[in-house]
């Protein structure tokens, strides 16, 4: 079992740096414990903050009394929503979704009502963290508990308790007269769905449910804020995007962005969950009130109960196909839980539901529903995993009913260049067909699976991948190395994948580039590390900066060699002109002696999606005695466009797969009738350990992205999408039972098998 790279599907370009596997630039720091994460900071004179959180899932806040806490020696400041400026109803795009600042402010500190168990209500700063927690317990909050609504279908009913009295559904239809918990209704339509179903020989419709799951990064949310006497605010924080933190802080605190500096420290995982602010504005206000730097680090239960999980969902998907295996029509009805405030991930979910297939006729209805759970956030390909579970299970059933091989059936209908997605866009060159073919060619597919209680499953997944803004500067040093200054926080090796693109363009080695992730005062605007965009978009900026450097180097070479710049040629990092020749490094040394400093600049804002597809092949064994599902063998195939650093591409594929496996088999928020999460710890919220998994085999397909000089598509998100349906389809083959609910945990599987054998 090993990693394979599928044969090139295009003319192979020869690269010196791209496609190699250098040791990443920050790894010595990270294997010796020297890398500085936010909680490792000890800012002089620092004090500690702690939150007071709602013990109710839904309650009116009658009063908050901080006086007892304030009297405690060592307590320096308290803070409630009254300390935040009045929020404005303004919507902004943060790169992986939009935010309404009134909602964001109300999520950071509850106003009038607590909308979920764990909702922050107040905070306190004290000279040590234990004292801060004791003081938080002395802040007295009087609540008037209200009935809570905890599941999407209940929350949509007319008689459900309302979270927001003013919430009127945003819809293309007539504006409803009455408020409800339905924040928006999205609709897409292509062709004529009735005609499509009329032309089908087989139609299958199924209902699906998925549970709330968390991104599960190991580092809790943590920040240090320092509000200086001159009015400047500095925040060290664990974030996927320092500039979007700056933007949110400026809007929430109503101050100019130029007064705020965000210092991104090393970050211990994010997966979409570290984009929205939580503790940052509170630490800032506490710092302003006590005049000292304030650190707030969440406890793990706070992370589960009060930061963005990704939603639970209720979905109905119907698909029709002809006898010869052509899809004719699709219909999807999707309701996602947004959490306590509008703006969940239903938008991308609705766009992704049929994104792998060429469907002539389809309709999609999507509902964003508020209920008494934490505000949901993006989680790696947000929304796409939910809908893939529904669609890919129905596809599998159709293939079975039509007696067509599941890969052939998918190949028959796969989206390709020119396919128009139900939500409108037409695909440019994409690699789904190539991924399915690579799976057909794999050793895994060609090795039959034998033995009782075993089954094999297949599924596909799609994610858009975005472009967005990135800026870099690159300074040529006197020794011919280049310092690359960037604003993309590095969560999984992007310093290196970006540096490699600069190196390739300049004809130097990866080691000759020194990448630095800097604060918001030291580089141009850069969007989040998210949307699978960093290696693509910041890499594009690095490529531009390299071309800028090359232009300046040519001019300096011309000056040194006393010829015109037109006479200087560059190939593979070697500059030639007037009969002379120098490598990049040697020329940089000469240029440093005679010329002005050479600084390259790259700024980009690509508007395209780079369209990633992945396919899984999985073998499982189901224990009929316990319902436990063991993954015997797992292969993930993905179109990377071009794998800059194959090890880290494989790493994304393996990590995303493992998260998808956890989502499929174990992970879920258990809620009691009181709306309290019953399993807010890593012991009870059961993420896969290494004992739960096999090796994860990877096949990298490279169908070049036409919108990038090296063909990069971005790889981070799509591998989480196919595992749940691939595993469901495998379990069906092992047990004869189809599953329509996630997670497929041992009790669920055991009950279903038992029901089947007793004929229930």
């Amino acid at each position, binding site marked *: 079992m090993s990693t394979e790279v599928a044969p090139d599907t295009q003319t192979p370009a020869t690269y010196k740096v791209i496609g190699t596997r250098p040791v990443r630039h920050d790894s010595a720091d990270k*294997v010796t*414990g020297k890398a500085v994460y936010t909680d490792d900071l000890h800012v002089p004179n620092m004090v500690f903050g702690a939150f007071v959180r709602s013990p109710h899932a839904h309650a009116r806040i009658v009063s908050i009394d901080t006086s007892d806490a304030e009297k405690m020696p060592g307590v320096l400041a308290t803070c409630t929503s009254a300390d935040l400026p009045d929020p404005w109803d303004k919507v902004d795009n943060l790169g992986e979704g939009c935010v309404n600042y009134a909602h964001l402010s109300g999520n950071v500190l509850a106003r009038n009502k607590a909308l979920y168990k764990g909702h922050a209500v107040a905070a306190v700063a004290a000279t040590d963290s*234990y004292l801060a927690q004791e003081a938080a317990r002395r802040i007295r909050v009087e609540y008037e508990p209200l009935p809570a609504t905890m599941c999407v279908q209940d929350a949509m009913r007319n008689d459900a308790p309302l979270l927001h009295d003013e919430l009127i559904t945003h819809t293309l239809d007539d504006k409803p007269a009455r408020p409800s918990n339905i924040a928006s209704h999205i609709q897409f339509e292509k062709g004529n769905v009735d005609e499509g179903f009329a032309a089908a020989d087989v139609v299958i419709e199924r209902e699906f449910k998925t549970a709330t799951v968390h991104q599960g990064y190991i580092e809790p949310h943590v920040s240090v804020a320092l509000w200086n006497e001159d009015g400047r605010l500095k925040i060290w924080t664990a974030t996927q995007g320092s500039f979007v933190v700056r933007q949110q802080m400026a809007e929430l605190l109503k101050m100019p962005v130029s007064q705020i500096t965000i210092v991104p420290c090393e970050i211990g995982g*994010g997966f979409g969950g570290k984009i929205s602010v939580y503790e940052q504005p509170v630490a800032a206000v506490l710092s302003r009130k006590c005049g000292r730097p304030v650190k707030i680090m969440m406890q793990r239960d706070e992370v589960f109960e009060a930061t963005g999980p990704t939603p639970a969902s209720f979905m109905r998907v119907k698909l029709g196909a002809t006898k010869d295996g052509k899809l004719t029509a699709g219909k999807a009805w999707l309701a996602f839980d947004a959490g306590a405030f509008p703006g969940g991930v239903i938008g991308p979910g609705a766009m992704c539901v049929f994104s792998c297939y060429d469907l002539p006729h389809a309709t999609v209805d999507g509902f964003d529903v508020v209920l008494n759970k934490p505000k949901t956030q993006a989680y790696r390909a947000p929304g796409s995993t939910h809908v893939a579970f529904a669609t890919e299970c129905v596809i599998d059933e159709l293939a079975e009913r039509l007696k067509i091989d599941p890969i052939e059936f998918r190949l028959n209908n796969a989206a390709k260049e020119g396919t128009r997605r139900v939500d409108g866009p037409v695909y440019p060159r994409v690699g789904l067909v190539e991924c399915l073919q690579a799976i057909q060619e794999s050793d895994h597919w060609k090795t039959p699976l034998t033995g009782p209680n075993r089954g094999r499953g297949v599924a596909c997944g799609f994610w858009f991948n975005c472009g967005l803004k990135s800026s870099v500067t690159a300074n040529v040093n006197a020794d011919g190395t280049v310092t690359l200054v960037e604003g993309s926080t590095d969560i999984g090796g992007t310093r290196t994948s970006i540096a490699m693109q600069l190196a390739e363009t300049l004809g130097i080695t990866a080691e000759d580039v020194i990448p630095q992730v800097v604060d918001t005062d030291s580089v141009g605007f850069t969007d989040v590390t998210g949307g699978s965009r960093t290696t693509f978009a910041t890499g594009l900026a690095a490529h531009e900066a390299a071309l800028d450097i090359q232009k300046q180097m040519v001019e300096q070479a011309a000056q040194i060699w006393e010829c015109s710049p037109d006479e200087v040629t560059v190939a593979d990092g070697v500059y030639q002109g007037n009969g002379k020749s120098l490598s990049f490094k040697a020329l940089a040394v000469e240029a440093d002696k005679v010329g002005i400093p050479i600084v390259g600049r790259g700024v980009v804002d690509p508007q395209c999606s780079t369209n990633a597809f992945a396919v899984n092949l999985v073998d499982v064994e189901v224990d009929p005695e316990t319902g436990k599902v063991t993954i015997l063998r797992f292969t993930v195939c993905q179109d990377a466009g071009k794998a800059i650093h194959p090890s880290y591409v*494989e790493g994304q594929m*393996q990590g995303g797969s493992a998260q998808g496996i956890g989502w499929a088999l174990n992970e879920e928020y258990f809620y009691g009738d009181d709306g309290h999460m019953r399993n807010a710890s890593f012991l009870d919220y059961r993420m896969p350990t290494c004992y739960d998994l096999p090796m994860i085999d990877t096949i990298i397909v490279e169908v070049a992205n036409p919108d990038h000089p090296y063909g990069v598509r971005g790889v981070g998100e799509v591998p989480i999408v196919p595992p749940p349906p691939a595993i469901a389809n495998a379990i069906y083959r092992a047990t004869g039972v189809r599953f329509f609910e996630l997670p497929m945990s041992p009790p669920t599987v055991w009950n279903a098998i038992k029901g089947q054998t007793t004929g229930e």
Partner: protein
Amino acid sequence: MKTHVTTTINGATVEFLCQPRQSLLAVLRDELSLTGCKEGCNNGNCGACTVMLDGLPVDSCLVLAVEAEGAEIETVEGIAEQGHLHPLQQCFLEGAALQCGICTPGFLVTAKALLEKNPQPSEQEIRFGLAGNLCRCTGYDKIVRAVQAASQASPES
């Protein structure tokens, strides 16, 4: 009221004062600036805080600092010797066995303890040995392979 504790950390005698309620993790990080061990959960479920205590890997968030009196402690900062990375560290870095890196110190300490006890572990033994450490980024594949590579590289110590 603070308690005086004398202990050995990475071979050197260290004295500190701590509150009786402080965990070993809190003292290592907040009082002694040994921030290599990480806090992921503070309740014994993630392994990011793993250190060696008298030859056994422990979750330092579950040990009270006062229990370190007279003990020998080794942290991730003590794994490399005189500027040379340990083979495990080298294999982690060459094998791309980390992404965000927050779990890495805990894995290195646990894996080193595992290899000292069992220099040639099978894949299952490695997976069992590391099951107390959570990593959310890598899917563990490259971590297991790095430990395999290190076990083949050197029958050290």
